[in-house]
């Protein structure tokens, strides 16, 4: 025995090394939770058709993270974000949710594309991890998803289009042709704008669905009926620039209807690109005005500087790198809402996830300010959906200038679900 104590056997050395390896592999369990950082998982469209959004979502998340940490973190604890690429693919999305949950993230946020959200949310529900989406889709408020999925950072499409329809009918025309992507996000536009314009005495006379992976669009354009008064377009994916260019070629210098587009068709694209001159005088929905407007709020000025966007909506370091300004604010606002929710819930560890969701559900109004630079909002805890102001801009001298801002009430609709009655 004595000898063993002095000269360790091979077996005891191996045992000791094994224990050391195990201990170093799980540092989280050896330290007290309270001083450890809060880990937020970010489901990122770094590659695939959502890559242009993903690039800016990541930058916005980093900028918001810096602001939150500089102000002392959440509950006095530092915050870190784990980014994981989902390739804008629903199947991969569910795997990313699983991976981030296994990595010990307190919650997951950040996905935009609706098919990815719809594909991933059920897994988040099964894993009982809060899943905060920045997606615009109506799938949250429709009741399609679950109690763990919330959308506190951006207004949904149903609300957006409902608030657009009165202005379109009153100012542009009543016979509308819609061009939209052929998947969930596009169907929200199709269904709710068609309904909303009907309520204004207008009519959608043609619906043209285009697969989101399409690379050429001229073949779809002759389907636009000649009697169209307003062409309503909303496109996504890497080919959006091709779409608007071909639209410009198609109408050329001939007669054309009024054109009203969702900025999605031009997110991350410079409106002053060659071939886009025809957009002059046309209208766009913008959640947040890409081009700096007169009377820009202090909060937005600070936000613009923090995420590195110039007065034209492009990166301060590269004028050709145009931001996804009407969507990426949702990442910033969601992170600030996470902070507010965790602090309200006294969030300590993953055991408090349910308390966090309940704290969010209890939220009602969000004031315009550093955490909500896009404007004030109303949060509906029952439907897990936030409602904010929308803007209509007109292209004037190659720049999108605001001509109308809706009220929050313009976009309200009856609740379709009460998630708070569902079990966790």
């Amino acid at each position, binding site marked *: 025995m004595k000898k063993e104590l002095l000269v360790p056997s091979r077996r005891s050395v191996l045992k000791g090394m094994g224990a050391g390896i195990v201990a170093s592999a799980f540092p989280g369990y050896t330290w007290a939770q309270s001083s450890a950082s809060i880990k937020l998982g970010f489901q990122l469209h*770094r*590659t*695939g058709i959502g*890559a*242009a959004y*993903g*690039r800016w979502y990541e930058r916005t998340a980093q900028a918001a993270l810096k602001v939150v940490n500089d102000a002392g973190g959440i509950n006095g604890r530092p915050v870190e974000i784990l980014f994981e690429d989902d390739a804008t693919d629903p199947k991969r999305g569910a795997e990313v949710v699983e991976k981030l949950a296994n990595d010990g993230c307190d919650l997951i946020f950040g996905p935009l594309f609706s098919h990815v959200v719809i594909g991933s949310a059920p897994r988040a529900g099964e894993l009982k991890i809060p899943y905060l989406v920045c997606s615009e889709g109506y799938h949250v408020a429709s009741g399609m998803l679950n109690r763990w999925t919330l959308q506190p950072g951006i207004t949904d499409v149903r609300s957006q289009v409902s608030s657009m329809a009165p202005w379109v009918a009153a100012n542009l025309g009543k016979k509308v042709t819609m061009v939209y992507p052929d998947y969930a996000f596009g169907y929200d536009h199709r269904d709710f704008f068609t309904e909303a314009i009907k309520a204004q005495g207008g009519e959608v006379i043609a619906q043209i669905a285009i*697969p989101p992976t*399409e*690379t*050429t669009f*001229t*073949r779809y*354009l*002759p389907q636009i009926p*000649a009697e169209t008064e307003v062409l309503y377009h909303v496109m996504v994916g*890497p*080919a959006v*620039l*091709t779409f608007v260019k*071909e639209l*410009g*070629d*198609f*109408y*050329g*210098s*001939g007669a054309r209807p009024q054109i009203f587009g969702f900025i999605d068709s031009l997110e*991350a694209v410079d409106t002053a*690109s*060659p*071939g886009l001159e025809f957009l002059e005088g046309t209208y766009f929905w913008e959640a947040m005005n890409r081009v700096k407007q007169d009377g820009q709020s202090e909060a937005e000025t600070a936000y613009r500087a923090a995420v590195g966007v110039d007065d034209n909506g492009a990166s301060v370091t590269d004028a050709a790198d145009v931001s996804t300004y009407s969507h990426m604010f949702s990442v910033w606002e969601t992170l600030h809402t996470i902070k507010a929710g965790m602090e309200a819930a006294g969030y300590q560890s993953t055991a408090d996830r349910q308390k966090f969701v309940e704290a969010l559900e209890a939220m009602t109004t969000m004031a315009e300010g550093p955490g909500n630079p896009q404007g004030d909002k109303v949060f509906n805890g029952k439907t897990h959906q936030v409602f904010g102001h929308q803007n209509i801009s007109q292209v004037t001298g190659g720049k999108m200038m605001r001509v109308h801002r809706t009220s929050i009430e313009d976009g309200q609709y009856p609740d379709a679900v009460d998630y708070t009655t569902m079990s966790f």
Partner: protein
Amino acid sequence: MSFGPFLLLAVMESLVTAATLALTAVGLSLVFGTMRVVNVAHGEFFMLGAVLAWFVTGWVGGPEWIGFVAALALAPLGVAAVATLADRLVLKRLSYEPEATIVATIGLLYILQQAALTFYGPEARPVEPPFNFRIQFPWFGYSGYKLFVIFAAVAVLLAVWWGLTRSKAGLVMRATQVDRDTARAFGINVDRVYAGVFALGAALAAIAAVLIVPIQQAHYLMGGEPLLLAFITVIVGGLGSLRGTVIAALVIGLSDGLIAFFYSPTLAKILATLLVALVLVFRPQGLFGAKT
């Protein structure tokens, strides 16, 4: 829109598809005809051409047409160099075994795609057309550049045809295609011919890509569709038959375009694939291929 103008627009769009398809498919067909290599990475050579065009136009600067001409000259050369390297490092070492080369080119496909993702990024980036000229018909406008693409593709195809039938290099290539061993016995350096043909096939895909990139945009996943259509074209036209490939490209480009215009793009793909199945069942050597 009434039927006449509608048809005119459909035919012009389809001809653009057919023109680039012919270039891509002829490259694929040449490689198969001469080397008996089914190049699954052909679509990635197309993508690489578009990506290089973006780099070259950005690097050259100045007026759009100068950057475009530079891209048209340099991008195919760059892609040909990559192809030569792949031939020397991979295909030659596999002794051009048909099964082995299929697997190897699948690997090459992923390597090129991921390399583009790493060094070029996931964004779709536009290349400016050399000129912005719009033809205004009474019913619609049409990009003048798209018409230029058709003429440019025809010119390149004529050059390839002339090279194959009238030049000494073409003669050597055809000799190798007919009988590799006899060609070697006559002192033809078959390895060099193979490297050259593989480079030429890749360069043709790259030229098609440089022509198309001002219309679409350069993206690391853009190689999938041209590969599928090129395979369909080559199978219908007859593997290794240049004339067959061009005619098949015209038929498939036009039918694909017209069906997509009047019915739906999905139906166009279904019918094209059905055509391939029928050809494989009733005429496995293709419409113009010789029985082997």
